[in-house]
């Protein structure tokens, strides 16, 4: 199963289980989404539960909020994460704050699914990785699966979660990442990282599409005799700080990888947390391997993205520090 199929499977199973789950967005109904994540859902669940909306992201999220207040569990799709910005007022000012500002009288749990990330020759409006904006806004959870199993399990958990969840899907890996996914219910709890390789010398922290680059770099490092530990965070908010602390206390070194620009990227927060909590264990500065401080480019996207060679270079420097 690939990630698209896993997302589709999770949506279908949750819609069967819970009649309050509805899917809405641009092109999600009859067409089944431009990436086909909702393919076949309108046939099965009808137009009242799988809704083709007009072309306005603020409308998609604003109406989803109203549905959530009224007791539905909306799963709006934003076609590309790059197009989420017209909905920022609804997400940051409204969705994130509704429970807080009403003293807990209201809540608007929803799962905003959106494909993110580069490497598909999409230029800056089909490639960005805007997770930091949402992690920075209290009241939102932010989840990023790297593989089909976690896509299904985390999306299921997100739909059942009492809080609004931004669910970022690594579009470059939609069909490239394949793996075994059990039939029927799969739940991966939000907030738990996964150690995908145990090691002793350096902790490499990644998520989503960049986990695959980090995995490649760690494998190449192993061939050079570097024993790295690799963490797939899976959930950025809540953050599994215990997993990070435990690993860095063991290895004494950390490399954080993300494709968003470096300045104020989530790597900055992770680096700060590590130095606050693991300072006496550190053998080297915490290092970031990230996209650059530019808009996402078109032709030079491979130069921009933190591919495995650049990650490996950082791993080697940190280990040799």
């Amino acid at each position, binding site marked *: 199963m690939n990630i698209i199929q896993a997302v589709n499977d999770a949506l279908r199973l949750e819609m069967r289980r819970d009649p309050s789950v509805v899917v809405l967005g641009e092109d999600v109904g009859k067409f089944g989404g431009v990436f086909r994540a909702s393919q076949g859902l309108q046939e099965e669940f009808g137009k009242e539960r799988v809704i083709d909306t007009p072309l306005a992201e603020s409308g998609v999220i604003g109406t989803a909020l109203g549905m959530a207040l009224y007791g539905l569990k909306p799963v709006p799709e934003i076609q590309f994460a790059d197009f989420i910005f*017209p909905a920022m007022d609804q997400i940051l000012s409204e969705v994130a704050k509704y429970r807080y500002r009403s003293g807990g009288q209201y809540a608007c749990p929803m799962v905003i699914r959106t494909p993110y990330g580069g490497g598909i020759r999409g*230029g800056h409006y089909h490639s960005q990785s805007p997770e930091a904006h949402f992690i920075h806004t209290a009241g939102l959870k932010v989840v990023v699966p790297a593989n089909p199993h976690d896509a299904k399990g985390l999306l299921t958990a997100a739909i059942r979660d009492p809080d609004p969840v931004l669910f970022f899907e690594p579009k470059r890996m939609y069909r490239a990442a394949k793996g075994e996914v059990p039939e029927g219910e799969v739940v991966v709890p939000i907030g738990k990282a996964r150690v995908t390789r145990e090691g002793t010398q350096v902790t490499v922290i990644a998520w989503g599409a960049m986990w695959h680059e980090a995995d490649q770099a760690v494998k190449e490092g192993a061939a050079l005799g570097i024993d790295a530990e690799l963490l797939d965070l899976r959930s950025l908010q809540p953050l599994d700080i215990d997993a990070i602390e435990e690993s860095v206390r063991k290895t004494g070194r950390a490399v954080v990888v993300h494709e968003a620009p470096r300045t104020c990227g989530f790597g900055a927060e992770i680096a700060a947390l590590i130095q606050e909590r693991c300072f006496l264990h550190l053998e080297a500065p915490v290092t970031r391997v990230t996209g*650059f401080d530019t808009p996402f480019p078109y*032709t030079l996207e491979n130069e921009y993205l933190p591919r*495995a060679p650049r990650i490996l270079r950082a791993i080697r420097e940190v280990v040799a520090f």
Partner: protein
Amino acid sequence: MRRVRDIEEARMRKGNLPAVGGGEGRWEREFPLRTVIADDGSADPAAVTLSDEEAVGLYRWMLLSREVDERMVQLQRQGRIAFYIGAIGEEATVLGTVAGMRQQDWLFPSYREHAGALFRGMPLSTFVCDLLGNAGDRMLGHQMPCHEAWAAGRFVSISAPIATQVPQAVGAAWAARIRGDDMVALTWFGEGATSANDFHTGANFAGVHKIPVVMACRNNGWAISVPRELQTASETIAQKAVAYGIHGERVDGNDLLAVHAATLRARERGAAGLGPTLLECVTYRVEGHSTSDDPRAYRSAEEVEAWRARDPILRMGRYLGWKRLVAAKDTEKFRAEAKDQVRRAVEEAEAFDPKPPVETLFAGVYAEPLWQQREQLAELRAAIAADPRTASPR
């Protein structure tokens, strides 16, 4: 769960083939579909706003636009460019509007009006360089294909986000008025964009301040897979003008003469201080949304074929035939010349290095790079020098 409401289905059955010549509803009568070229190619001379020479010239532009679109889709299929989004079937709308503006007027495009950039002097080979994102790309490889800018022709930079250009066009036209310049801005957008906040904001600002702007809606029936009837419950796009207190018109977007005449009227209104015009051009997106789309998944072949029969190029050809300005063999000659022009442009464009130099990655983020961009460029150069795979996909 309540039963599925099928109101929209009923509307779709009626609406997928809007009757050219006007429908039944109140707003369709209020905003009648204006045409100039009759089915037999004849036209009332009093309604024709193009000289014979201009008419033939624009016909050739339409043929070139079609040839560019068809050839670029082929190049995409061959893997020579990554993506293409064109205007097949919408040539009369694009060229009729741009030709109705004056040289000093600024153009705020959506992403299908490449013929507008070419019409304003962007060399065809430069356009192809943009598609390739190569060392000859005027956008320095920063944008994906079909997101060109051509400042020399006052054709601003194309964005993928929807309708963002509408208030921007209003601002530029406002600036011209503040400066006392004779400049009316033209902005293009699809009917899907009329759902977006920025369309409403732009129309409202323009209405309140009587801004000289022509808001040209290419109503091509489809926003990717979403038909017009699921985009708006309005019978027409033009009637949206009423709510903003601005002038609205609805023309047959496949009739070059009708589009041109309407644009002239709209420009004149703007220049005379009478404010903006919402100009709905009713046309059809004959192909997929882009090369990434497969429209067979969501619409019928019959619907598409009905619109192919209304091809704006055939329509203009009939007019020129009726005027005895162009015979079938002339069209063949024009087509061959367009083909040759495109072939040469592709050759010229493909002669450039496939990638712009690595420093262009950081060029233009700020007017002058900050320390971050300078350091990161050095870091990238060192990484590439150490391992050339740094710059390659896995």
